[in-house]
């Protein structure tokens, strides 16, 4: 087991694929605590037993049951084989999470390790939401002390855009998290935090930086930056923040978080851009200032 601290959240985490995840979490390890904010254990099982309890909800292939002790469990059961490829047990506040995966079973094209990565990340995001923070699907970077996040649907080029900043400014740019930085309000300032859940690139650093702006990236021929209307900002944010179908409370927390971003005037922009340094200049001029010298 490792004890890690991510965005101020302490997690006692027991991995299934120990070799891989011990390395991945290594920058976040702290001394053991017997009172963490949450505990996550992943087990690779020869067979995942179907949970027995009162069915709370069934949404498409997913079933959610409540066990006799109040613990919830979400799982999928194959209608053809009766096989249960995974079961995730969690308390309503996500303080205790147990992820069971059928050993060596490739489910929907993903391996045990990939499912472990996804579900540990989702469960952490849910716990963080209940603690007042969130995880934003985006590439988060810091130019000096200015945290900027670039969000978009996969394949739009947000990571590529951040790599252009790194190419241009070198060590003045830190890639805080290339896929899912955490965001929290501390006092009256929002910060972005590195987390170990950064997608395949594993680009993340255990730091926090003041959040200066949020950009939603769209491909375009011209490089333009414009402030989003409130409704556009909410629409885009709500699509890239946690809002799982199995727990409306997390979605409600996400809406509250968006309200806080609005209250504290965190600017939300639309960046239409090509893959070029001109796009970096457009953002730089808007967020950092116009006195840029190459």
């Amino acid at each position: 087991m490792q004890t890690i601290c991510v965005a101020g959240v302490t997690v006692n985490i027991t991995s299934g694929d120990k070799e891989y995840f011990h390395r991945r979490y290594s920058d976040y390890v702290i001394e053991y605590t017997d009172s963490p904010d949450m505990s996550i254990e992943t087990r690779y099982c020869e067979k995942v037993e179907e949970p027995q309890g009162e069915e709370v909800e069934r949404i498409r292939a997913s079933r959610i049951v409540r066990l006799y002790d109040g613990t919830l469990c979400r799982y999928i059961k194959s209608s053809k084989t009766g096989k249960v490829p995974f079961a995730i047990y969690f308390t309503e506040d996500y303080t205790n999470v147990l992820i069971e995966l059928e050993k060596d079973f490739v489910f929907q094209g993903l391996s045990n390790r990939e499912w472990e990565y996804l579900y540990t990340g989702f469960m952490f995001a849910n716990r963080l939401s209940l603690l007042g923070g969130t995880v934003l699907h985006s590439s988060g970077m810091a130019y000096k002390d200015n945290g900027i996040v670039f969000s978009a649907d996969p394949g739009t080029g947000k990571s590529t855009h951040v790599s252009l900043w790194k190419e241009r400014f070198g060590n003045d740019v830190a890639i805080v998290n290339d896929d899912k930085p955490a965001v929290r309000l501390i006092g009256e300032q929002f910060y972005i935090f590195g987390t170990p859940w950064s997608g395949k690139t594993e680009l993340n650093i255990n730091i926090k930086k003041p959040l200066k702006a949020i950009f939603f990236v769209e491909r375009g021929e011209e490089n333009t930056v414009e402030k989003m209307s409130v409704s556009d900002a909410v629409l885009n944010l709500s699509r890239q923040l946690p809002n799982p179908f199995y727990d409306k409370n997390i979605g409600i927390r996400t809406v509250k978080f968006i309200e806080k971003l609005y209250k504290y005037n965190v600017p939300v922009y639309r960046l239409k851009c090509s893959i070029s340094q001109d796009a970096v200049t457009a953002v730089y001029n808007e967020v950092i200032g116009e006195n840029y010298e190459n």
Partner: protein
Amino acid sequence: MRIKDGFIKSNLGEECVVVPVGAQTVDFRGLITLNETGEFIWEILSEDKSLDDIVTALTAEYDIDAQTARKDAQDFVKILEEKGFLED
């Protein structure tokens, strides 16, 4: 009729938006923006109400006649029904 569970209304400045949460996100990943009258009717429909209830509330709140209120209410309710936001 009433608004289904799983839609959260939020007032941000002068804008009023409604965001789906939980199971509602399975079928609807968009956003609803409400004008003042829309927000008023939405609030009414947070509880089980009839079209007549809405018309009565609209004529009491706004300086409009019952015929206009009924048409406004019908138009809005029709949109809500088509989008699947209402339940009996």
